[in-house]
């Protein structure tokens, strides 16, 4: 199989040159969470790699993935998740890019059976001419009733010509489902920045604090929550 082009939906915003250089990719890591089991993984992408995971979550099992996507010219974390009956999946992802970085989080979350739940929170902060992309598809199969799925996608651009792309996609074939997504792209709240500055905090620090607030909570529940948060704040500090 040859390397994908931009015509390939899953790679439409990718750094194609970097993808070609990395091609062919090794087979995705396969993870099977047995019925009733739990699985947790933290992915810190800080060296410009393509991570591909296929995760099958068994009946009543849970899986939680936390992603910090910050390093290299091109970094991609791609998750292909299948949920069986009453399984639960959570994703908390933060990507922070500057200069000419291209960072992507790509997910396909398939609710194959009834009663499964999924929650995805993705926050991107982009500076310079960096590109941050979230392509997230939630697919609900014909009989996967009582699906409950949310996607919360937010991006913050710090410079003109930084790019945020988002495609929170729903493909739904069952009627008794609760699927919602919200996506917001914008700049830091001016009133919040003023409030911080009115308390004596410098503009740069105020910006950093607001960005901290922006990514807050994404790593909640991760085993290494503090380390992740610290690494995220350090990267934010570099950008501001």
């Amino acid at each position, binding site marked *: 199989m040859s390397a994908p082009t931009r015509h390939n*939906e899953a790679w439409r915003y990718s750094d194609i040159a970097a993808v070609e250089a990395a091609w062919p990719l090794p087979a995705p890591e396969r993870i099977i969470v047995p019925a009733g089991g739990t699985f947790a993984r933290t992915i810190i992408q800080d060296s410009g790699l393509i991570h591909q995971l296929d995760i099958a979550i068994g009946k009543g099992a849970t899986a939680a993935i936390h992603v910090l996507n910050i390093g290299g010219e091109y970094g991609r974390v791609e998750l292909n998740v299948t949920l069986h009956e009453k399984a639960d999946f959570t994703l908390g992802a933060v990507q922070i890019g500057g200069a000419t970085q291209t960072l992507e989080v790509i997910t396909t979350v398939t609710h194959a059976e009834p009663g499964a739940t999924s929650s995805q929170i993705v926050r991107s902060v982009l500076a310079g001419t960096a590109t941050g992309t979230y392509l997230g598809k939630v697919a609900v199969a*014909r*009989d996967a*009733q009582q699906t409950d799925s949310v996607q919360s996608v937010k*991006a*913050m*651009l*710090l*410079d*003109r*010509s*930084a*790019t*945020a*792309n*988002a*495609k*929170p*996609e*729903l*493909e*739904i*074939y*069952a*009627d*008794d*489902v*609760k*699927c*919602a*997504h*919200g*996506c*917001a*792209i*914008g*700049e830091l709240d001016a009133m919040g920045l003023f409030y911080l500055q009115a308390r004596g905090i410098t503009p740069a620090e105020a910006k950093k604090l607001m960005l901290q607030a922006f990514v807050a909570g994404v790593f909640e529940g991760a085993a290494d929550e503090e380390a992740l948060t610290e690494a995220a704040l350090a990267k934010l500090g570099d950008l501001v």
Partner: protein
Amino acid sequence: MTDDIEIKDKAAWDAAEKVADYEHGWSSDIETDFAPKGLNEDTVRFISAKKNEPEWMLEWRLKAFAMWKTMEAPDWAKLNVPPIDYQDAYYYAAPKAKPKLNSLDEVDPEILRVYEKLGIPIAEQKLLAGVEGGEDGGLPQRRVAVDAVFDSVSVATTFRAELERAGVIFRSISEAIKEYPDLVRKYLGKIVPMHDNYFATLNCAVFSDGTFVYIPEGVRCPMELSTYFRINAENTGQFERTLIVADKGSYVSYLEGCTAPMRDENQLHAAVVELVALDDAEIKYSTVQNWYPGDAEGKGGIYNFVTKRALCQGRNSKVSWTQVETGSAVTWKYPSCVLNGENSVGEFYSVAVTNNHQQADTGTKMIHNGKGSRSTIVSKGISAGHSNNTYRGLVRVAPNAEGVRNFTQCDSLLLGSLSGAHTVPYIEVRNPSAQIEHEATTSKISDDQMFYAMARGLNAEEAVALIVNGFAKEVLQQLPMEFAVEAQKLLGISLEGSVG
């Protein structure tokens, strides 16, 4: 069934069923003038010659046809369309009308009867019949000028004189090509370029007729402009071309409504609509699309591949698209706004209903190039039966577009567990000052809602119609009043048989 009329005769019963299936499912017998079946350069020349077009227009068509032959049909939509045999269709059919029509009296009474069957609002019929104003002492009658497109040729235009007094040009596009060639050439193919997409290119080559509107600087069009589309001839593709130019500070509201008689063969429709709004101009474009959707088994129905795009070129220009899509077997349609003007505004309000085996892939693109440009997208998708209903949209903000705002709301309602509801929004932002918000929800009609409505005396279908109308209200209220009433009824009709 609780009908108190007992129908014993099987054939009569079937016939009754068939009629009930599709209200507008009849065909009138008007003699038709066909172009030979099939599509080649000669077809293009035939159409152009039939319309006495100038040489530049023929060349333009031929160029498009050559281009089209090298192109492939797009396959990215969530649609399952069998291969279309473009050689197995007629590309031109004109009702045999008198060579020149100056008033409605001269229109074939058969055609007028068709409009009556279509349920053109009473007020409008009065107007069509030349009755001015409303004597009933009720609401002041709104005035609507109709450019009727019957199959492929515009047969009559009303209120031409009054519009002309205001300086408004309201013509069939074939007339406009001859009468206002400079104006047409300036804009034709400039908003939707010839190479834009497979269906648009095809339209460039074989478009049969359509509407041209020009509103001069500072003019508020004195009445709503309206075109009724009908597809009537068997196996005839319909390739309408519409061009509306709103000059500085002008305003126009344009209504487009469609129904089609029942046919077993799939009919191809590939229209192109181009809108241009200059400084401070506003265009409101409303559509109710109720073409034949095919039968309950998915047989027949219109294939509707439409390219609609508006260029908000001027400062503070505004284009508002409102569509109620209930018909067609396949809908592929993305009325869009290119917001080049500073503080320009784009709006897209859509209700798309699919039932039985209908497929709709529809949405919008808002391309923000102008500073301070704003857009609003409200999409309500309703899926019933075995149908699939997709919202596909793009919001793009260019690096130099400061202060852009977009709000998008996409809601899907599923009726029954055999349909599909899909949302595919693309968001691409390159300016930090943009504020882009997108929300999507998916829901079904709850048992509680149904029970509540039925406990108040509604039957299941009435209850569904009521709840669906509530779901779509935000969009329906954007429509001009009598259109809104028609659209409300349509939603109910389209969903018949989807419950119980």
